[in-house]
């Protein structure tokens, strides 16, 4: 069984040398993901009191492995995937090739960045976790590498903008095709969002690690980190929404019902950037008023995800009914569950519903007081980034890798088994993490080494984490086997196009709707809201106290 592919209506195909760069960008993501999930296994077992991390090659402490897990999975894998997948989708949407120089520059930048960061983590000079809060002080290659990884995404944005500008010149008066629109807004959104972390790393931490500053300002650095650290979750998610909106409808034989709804939901993400303070609900030095204002905005950013839920479910329903499903939910069983790409992504959506609910619980600050920094939090985000995003990426890979390689998928059945194992695994894992968190079990802790007797509720929680995490790990290994075998031993075949969806209501060229494409105005609105929320706080921190000395006992 192969994934259904539509022929390109306008005969578009990506030049071979661009296809190759996109391929290696995405594969870089898969390689770091493989290392990341191996560490995930060790962490899950740690919560079940099985201490194996000392036997991991190149890993001396639990926290060294945890740093690798967070940095590789959540930062490098997701960015590499976005750089490859979104660029490809925009090229396809516009029916134009990308700028080759920028594509190559982006690839080499993220590769060098990854090597520097990974080197620092492996040699033990950067066990600062993926949040690297100063005054924990890593060695300079860690910061430089991270900066390069982020800069690679800026190079990709430049590429998208250049290509879009060319499209607009050549097609005056035309609306931006939806697939390209989603990709471009994702990167505009990210360019603004990433400013916090770039300033933190380039202006403060990197020079500090080179001895140019004498200390750090922990509160300001945390704030800059979370300025980016919340919206980063949408940078993980929006490429997935592109697949759910722009490709899944085609893959299930359905259709997307409204073009404008999609654009509006992407614009809402663009506008509601500055809500990172909800990660600092229990921080000192931030006023209550600001925290409460951000809590309300955080609830608002739930709306575009609800819109997505509706559109995507509707597309699935159209497909399921066309395939003969009826009744209130009968259609759900008629979507092509045997297609590993669909199966993985629909399971990812189910996980995301649970992730959304637990996210609302985190955002309710009274609840946050109970669970901040407990295992409830990794319980929540393994449903979101760890599954909704990661399992969707695996699902996308089941057509993307064959498309990029022009080879048949090695085994659809193995892909299906992988997806189900991962999904069932994460349900057990999250159940353990969440109940542990409610019982006060701290996250980011080598639980297998604690010196005190554990409170009730932790033991069972930890065992569930160990069992669920092991299932996830086996699922992930199976995914890598399928991909590796496709690349190395897949049968040659011709795959003309990506699964490109049509919309039921096509974009209008008159009325209010073209206003959605005038990104300039929406960018201004977005920046304005950032200034309103962050401006006064940051201004109140001047003059900065760069005086807390670095700390390296890890």
């Amino acid at each position, binding site marked *: 069984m192969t994934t259904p592919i539509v022929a390109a209506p306008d005969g578009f195909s990506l030049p071979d040398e661009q296809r190759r760069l996109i391929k290696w960008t995405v594969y870089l993501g898969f390689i770091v993901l493989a290392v990341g999930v191996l560490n995930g296994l060790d962490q899950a077992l740690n919560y079940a009191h099985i201490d194996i991390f000392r036997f991991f090659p190149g890993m001396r*402490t639990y*926290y060294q492995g*945890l740093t690798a897990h967070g940095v590789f999975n959540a930062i490098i894998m997701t960015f590499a995937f976005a750089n490859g997948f979104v660029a490809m989708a925009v090229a396809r949407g516009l029916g134009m090739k990308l700028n080759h120089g920028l594509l190559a520059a982006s690839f080499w930048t993220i590769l060098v960045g990854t090597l520097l960061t990974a080197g620092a983590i492996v040699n033990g000079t950067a066990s600062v*976790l993926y949040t690297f*809060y100063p*005054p*924990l002080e890593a060695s300079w290659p860690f910061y430089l590498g991270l900066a390069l990884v982020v800069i690679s995404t800026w190079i990709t944005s430049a590429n998208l903008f250049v290509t879009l500008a060319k499209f607009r010149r050549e097609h005056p008066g035309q609306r931006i095709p939806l697939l390209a629109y989603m990709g471009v807004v994702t990167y505009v959104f990210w360019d603004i969002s990433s400013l916090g972390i770039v300033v933190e790393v380039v202006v403060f931490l990197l020079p500090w690690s080179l001895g140019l500053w004498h200390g750090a300002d*922990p*509160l300001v650095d*945390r704030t800059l980190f979370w300025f980016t650290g919340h919206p980063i979750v949408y940078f993980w998610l929006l490429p997935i929404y592109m697949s759910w909106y722009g490709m899944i409808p085609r893959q299930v034989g359905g259709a997307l*019902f*409204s073009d404008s*709804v999609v654009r509006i939901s992407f614009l809402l993400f663009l506008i509601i950037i500055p809500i990172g303070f909800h990660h*600092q*609900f*229990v*921080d*000192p*030095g*931030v*006023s*209550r008023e600001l*925290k*409460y204002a951000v*809590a*309300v905005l955080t*609830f608002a950013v739930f*709306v575009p995800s*609800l*819109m997505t839920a*509706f559109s995507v479910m*509707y597309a699935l329903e159209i497909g399921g009914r066309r395939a003969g499903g009826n009744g209130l939910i009968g259609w759900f069983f008629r979507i092509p569950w045997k297609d590993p790409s669909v199966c993985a992504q629909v399971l990812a959506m189910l996980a995301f519903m649970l992730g959304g609910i637990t996210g*609302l619980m985190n955002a*309710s*600050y*009274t609840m*946050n*007081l*109970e669970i*901040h*920094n*407990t295992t409830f939090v990794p319980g929540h985000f393994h449903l979101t980034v760890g599954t909704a995003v990661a399992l969707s990426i695996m699902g996308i890979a089941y057509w993307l890798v064959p498309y990029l390689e022009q080879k048949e998928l090695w085994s659809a059945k193995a892909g299906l088994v992988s997806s189900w194992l991962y999904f069932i695994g994460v349900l057990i894992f999250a159940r353990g993490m969440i109940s542990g968190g409610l019982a*006060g079990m*701290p*996250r*980011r*802790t*080598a*639980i297998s*080494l*604690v*010196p*005190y007797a554990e*409170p009730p509720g932790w033991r069972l929680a930890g065992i569930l984490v160990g069992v669920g995490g092991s299932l996830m790990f086996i699922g992930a290994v199976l995914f890598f086997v399928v991909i590796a075998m496709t690349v190395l031993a897949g049968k040659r075949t011709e795959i003309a196009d990506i699964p490109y969806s049509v919309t*039921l*209501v096509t974009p209008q060229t008159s009325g209010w709707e073209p206003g959605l494409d005038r990104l300039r105005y929406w960018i201004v609105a977005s920046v304005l809201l950032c200034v309103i929320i962050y401006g006064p706080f940051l201004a109140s921190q001047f003059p900065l*106290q760069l005086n*807390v000395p670095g*700390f390296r006992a*890890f």
Partner: protein
Amino acid sequence: MNHEAERYERLFLIISGLFLVGFLIVLAYTSIHMGVMLPGKVGVIEAKAGESLAAAVFRTPPFDHLGVKKIGPDDYEAVYFAQAWAFFPREIDLPVGARVKFIATSVDVTHGFFIAGTRVNMMLLPGQISEETYTFRKAGKYLLLCHEYCGLLHQTMHAWVIVK
């Protein structure tokens, strides 16, 4: 078919929106009527030129007197400082019903201050003072944990609050 879908979508969004507003109202209620508050801005500790942060902490009240102080019939103040990888004091005793204001800071890295099973949950940042108030209604031996990664022996960093 589309008009119908649009109607459903509007309905779906309105109902979900009402849920979100409902949640916010509940949140406001718990804050205003039940007094469940987030920690806010308290104060900073600034080291003088050439002085270490630890020295600055120990000369700044209330950190010059660590531990529990009774300040009213049921009111207490518990003053802590955190340093990799321990809390001081390591153990405190309180009577059931004590309303305690925890005041804490860190002298080196970011630490967490979390009493498992309660909503005493705050971050300790070097140079910043953290404060939170909580009433202990049940007797027990409460585990005070550092729940932010703070280096190699982070998992050992804990203390006890004994409520009798």
